[in-house]
C-alpha cells in the first residue's frame, strides 16, 4: 500500500528571493529516489528554505525542480503535496484523537483512508494510541504521529525539517531509527535537513552541504565525511 512510485528530485538553478534579496542562490542538485538525502550546513545557510521549495511551501523565483522528471510547477499544489509529504521541526498535533490526525490528509484530499494499525506499527506507536487525544502524547510520540500522518497520504517523498531538533535524546534516537527503517521498508525518498553533522553521517545515503544560500557540494555521505572530516567538529 505504501510502496512509492519513484520520488526522484532534480533541482536546477533554484533561486529564492525574499524582500528583494536572494536567500537561495542557484541551487542545483539531484536527489536519488528511495534513499535518504541529508542537507547539512550552518544555521542561516538556507537548508529549510530549500527544503520547502520542494513542496512549494516557499516558491522559487528562478530555476526549476522536477519530481519524476516533471516540473513541480506543473503539478497542482494539492497533488504535489500529496506526493511530497512533510514533517516539521516542532510536531504539531491537531485537535482530536491520533486517529483524527492520521486521517486528516486523506480526508482533506478525498483519498482512500489508510489502515491505521499498519501506520502505527510502522512508526512504532502502540495500536491502542489510535483513540488517545493527540495533544496528550509526549513530544517524541507526537513527532512519530506526524511522520505517520505524512505517510497516510501515500507520498513518494517525505521532507523532514530538523525532525529531531526539538526532541530529547531518547526520542531523537527513536525517530532517527524510524527514518532509516522507513527508507528501507517503505521505499520512500527522504530529504532530511539537519544541523547535526553526526546525525547526517549516521542516517544519510547522500549529503548536500549548504552555505550562505548555495549548495557547496552533493556527494555520497561516506565520501563527504572523508573529504570534509572537519565538519564533524
Amino acid at each position, binding site marked *: 500500500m505504501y510502496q512509492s512510485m519513484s520520488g526522484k528530485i532534480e533541482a536546477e538553478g533554484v533561486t529564492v528571493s525574499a524582500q528583494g534579496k536572494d536567500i537561495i542562490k542557484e541551487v542545483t542538485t539531484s536527489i536519488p529516489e528511495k534513499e535518504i538525502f541529508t542537507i547539512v550546513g550552518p544555521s542561516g545557510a538556507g537548508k529549510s528554505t530549500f527544503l520547502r521549495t520542494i513542496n512549494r*511551501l516557499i516558491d522559487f523565483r528562478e530555476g526549476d525542480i522536477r519530481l519524476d522528471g516533471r516540473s513541480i510547477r506543473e503539478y497542482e499544489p494539492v497533488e504535489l*503535496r500529496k506526493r511530497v509529504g512533510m514533517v516539521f521541526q516542532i510536531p504539531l498535533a491537531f485537535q482530536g484523537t491520533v486517529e483524527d490526525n492520521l486521517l486528516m490528509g486523506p480526508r*482533506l484530499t478525498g483519498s482512500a483512508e489508510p489502515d491505521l494499525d499498519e501506520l502505527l506499527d510502522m512508526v512504532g506507536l502502540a495500536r491502542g494510541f489510535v483513540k488517545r487525544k493527540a495533544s496528550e502524547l509526549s513530544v517524541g510520540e507526537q513527532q512519530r504521529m506526524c511522520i505517520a500522518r505524512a505517510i497516510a497520504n501515500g507520498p513518494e517523498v517525505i521532507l523532514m525539517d530538523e525532525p529531531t531538533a526539538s526532541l530529547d535524546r531518547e526520542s531523537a534516537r527513536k525517530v532517527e531509527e524510524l527514518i532509516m527503517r522507513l527508507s528501507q521498508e517503505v521505499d520512500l525518498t527522504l530529504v532530511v535537513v539537519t544541523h547535526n553533522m553526526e546525525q547526517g553521517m549516521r542516517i544519510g545515503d547522500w549529503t548536500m552541504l549548504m552555505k550562505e544560500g548555495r549548495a557547496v557540494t552533493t556527494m555520497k555521505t561516506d565520501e563527504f565525511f572523508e573529504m570534509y572530516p572537519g565538519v564533524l567538529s
Partner: protein
Amino acid sequence: MNIEQIVSMEDVVKLIVASMLIGVVMIISYVRRLELISDLAISSIRAFVQLMILALFLQVIFDIQNLFWISLILLGMMVIASYTSAKRAKEIRNAFRISATSIITSSSAIILVMVVLGVIPLQAEYIIPLGGMVIGNCMNITSLAMERLKGEVANNTMMIDNILALGARTDQAISPLIKKSVRASLIPTVDNMKTMGLVWIPGLMSGMIIGGMDPSKAAVFQLIIIFMILASNTIASVISTMEMSKNMFGSADQLIYRP
C-alpha cells in the same frame, strides 16, 4: 442660502457653551500632563468644520433631491470608508480592493434592499444619514475583521503550513481562522443589540425622540436600522476576511503573509 438659515443665534450660543467643555478637558490635560492638547484642539476643530460643511452640503442636496447626486455622495462615503479601512491592512496585497469590495458590496446591497422594499423612503434626508450609518459600521467591522484575521494568521503560521503540507487547499487551511475572525468582529454589534434599551439608548432613537417623534415610532425605526447594520456588518465581515485570505497566499498556494 447662508449659515443663519441652518443655525440660529441661539444655537451658536449653545455651541459655544458646549465648546467650553473642550476647554475643561484641555485644562485637565494640561494639569495631568496628558499631552492631549494639540490632538484635542485639532480633532475639535476638524469635527466642527467637517460637520458644518456637511450640514451646508446636505441642505443643498436635500433641496435638489436628485438620485444621481444621492448615489454619488453614498459612493464617495464608501470610497473614503474603504480607504480608511485599507490603511489597517497596508501589508496585505490589494488592501484597498479588499476593503472596497467588502464595504461597497455590503452597504449598497442592504441600502438597496431597504429602499426597494420601501422601508426607507427614497429621499436624501433619509438615505444619506442612514446610508452613512451603515457605511460607517461596515468600515469599522471591515477594519476589525481584517485586523483580527491578520493576528490569527500570524499566530498560526505553523498550523497553516502543516495543513497545507498535508494537501489542503488554502480555503481549507484558513477557514477556521476566518470563522474566528468573523465571530470576533461581530461581538460589538451583537453585544450592542443585547444591551440596547437596557444600558444605552441608541443615538438615532434619542435624536428622533428629542426631535419630537413618538418613542414607539422611534424604536421601530431604530430597530430597522439595527437590523440593517447587523446584516451589512455580517456581509462585510465575511467578504473582507474571505477576500483578504486570498491575498495571503501565493500562486503555489503557499502562505506569503508572514509578519
